[in-house]
């Protein structure tokens, strides 16, 4: 089997321990890092994501595959950087100020990385200004905000307002998510999108980037 197809198939089968070894082998066989990324790792994770959306596999399956994806990415990142290969997009992500819940945000970060995005994870309890500062400093086109408490949701509006106040509307888009966060809330505060779950968040971010965020 083509080594790149084998990488993708290993991810799909949850053989996460094999992926890094196969990526090394592909590099030794002089495959281009960008091909390994797209036709191996991302192709495999796309299938995993699709199976998850269809409920054919479960969250742990996705995360097992993500472990393999990350191990492979660690090998490719320096090479991709050397070649100046752009990512699918740069995203700044975090749980908003006052909220220490980070599992949901971590899952979104993993899924975004698996889809080829460059994710700057600011962690939890992140003030509004830090999101916008980071987006400007690192040239991110999307800010992802997570909140699990109704008391912290207003911080999302602070971020949206700050993006507007700095004249970044249109260039930096904001997606929100978390258990109490709804599509209606996203509309109310002027966010550009709402991600219902981690898989949906990836779809929405892809759409935002494709629309020219």
């Amino acid at each position: 089997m083509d080594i790149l197809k084998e990488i993708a198939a290993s991810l799909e089968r949850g053989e996460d321990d094999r992926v890094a070894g196969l990526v090394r082998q592909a590099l030794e066989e002089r495959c281009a890092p960008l091909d390994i990324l797209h036709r191996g790792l991302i192709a495999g994770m796309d299938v995993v994501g699709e199976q998850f959306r269809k409920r054919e596999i479960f969250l742990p399956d996705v995360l097992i595959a993500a472990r393999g994806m990350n191990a492979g990415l660690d090998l490719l990142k320096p090479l991709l950087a050397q070649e100046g290969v752009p990512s699918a997009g740069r995203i700044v992500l975090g749980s908003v100020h006052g909220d220490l819940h980070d599992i949901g945000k971590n899952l979104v970060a993993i899924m975004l990385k698996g889809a080829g995005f460059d994710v700057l994870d600011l962690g939890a309890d992140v003030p509004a200004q830090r999101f916008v500062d980071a987006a400007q400093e690192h040239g991110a086109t999307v800010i992802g905000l997570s909140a699990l408490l109704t008391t912290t949701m207003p911080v999302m509006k602070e971020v949206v307002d700050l993006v507007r106040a700095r004249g970044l509307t249109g260039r930096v888009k904001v997606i929100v998510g978390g258990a109490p966060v709804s599509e209606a809330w996203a509309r109310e505060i002027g966010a550009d999108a709402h991600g219902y779950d981690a898989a949906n968040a990836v779809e929405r971010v892809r759409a935002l980037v494709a629309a020219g965020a």
Partner: protein
Amino acid sequence: MRQRLAWTAAESLPGRLEVLRLQGVPAEADLPPRIGALLEAALAAYLETAEPRAVIGGISREEFRGIYHGEGRNAPETPLETVLAGAERLALFVATVGNAVTTRIRDLFGRNEPALGAMLDSVASAAADRLAVLLSARFLGTEGGAGANGTRVLAYSPGYCGWHVSGQLALFAALDPGEIGVTLNSSCLMEPLKSVSGVLVAGPAGIHRFAPAYPFCPECRDQSCRARNAALTTS
């Protein structure tokens, strides 16, 4: 009377099906061996790190009404107001599985072990819920779910069913759970994260039944009231 309670990690260990439910794996699913192995590893990690403990204090209905009102941000109508009308006894509680579990979860994510980290997170969440069940049994004075004459104890928590999460402020002021290491941050979020709080309500099973038809119900992703109602009906 105020009491401090502690359990072994094993006593608070949740059922496997409940953990898998939180992971989105339905009970009837054919569990792949790799997920089974992950679950067992997460349960073992929980047993190594958990330090379950709680503080509980009885309170009168009149005193509780003031706490329930809290910052005045509850929904206009809530099920707990109806439940309270038929309550025989009440107790405030705060319980936690401790901070070491959360630290382990973060460590696992940091070490590129997201599947195990997320599974342990679900184990800890289910264990925190189990502490409320253990407290309910203790409050009822039986090890089973139902007392004499069909009396049942159920837990109700700020942040659910119209009881605004800011109600934590009054609850914490009344119970002062600092001695078990649980504090509130400025967002009314408990630290350690895997903690539960609220009021235990003892009374006839019928008082706990309500239809999830309040204005806030459609937005609720928890929906645990349905299982609770079903359990009240079948027991």
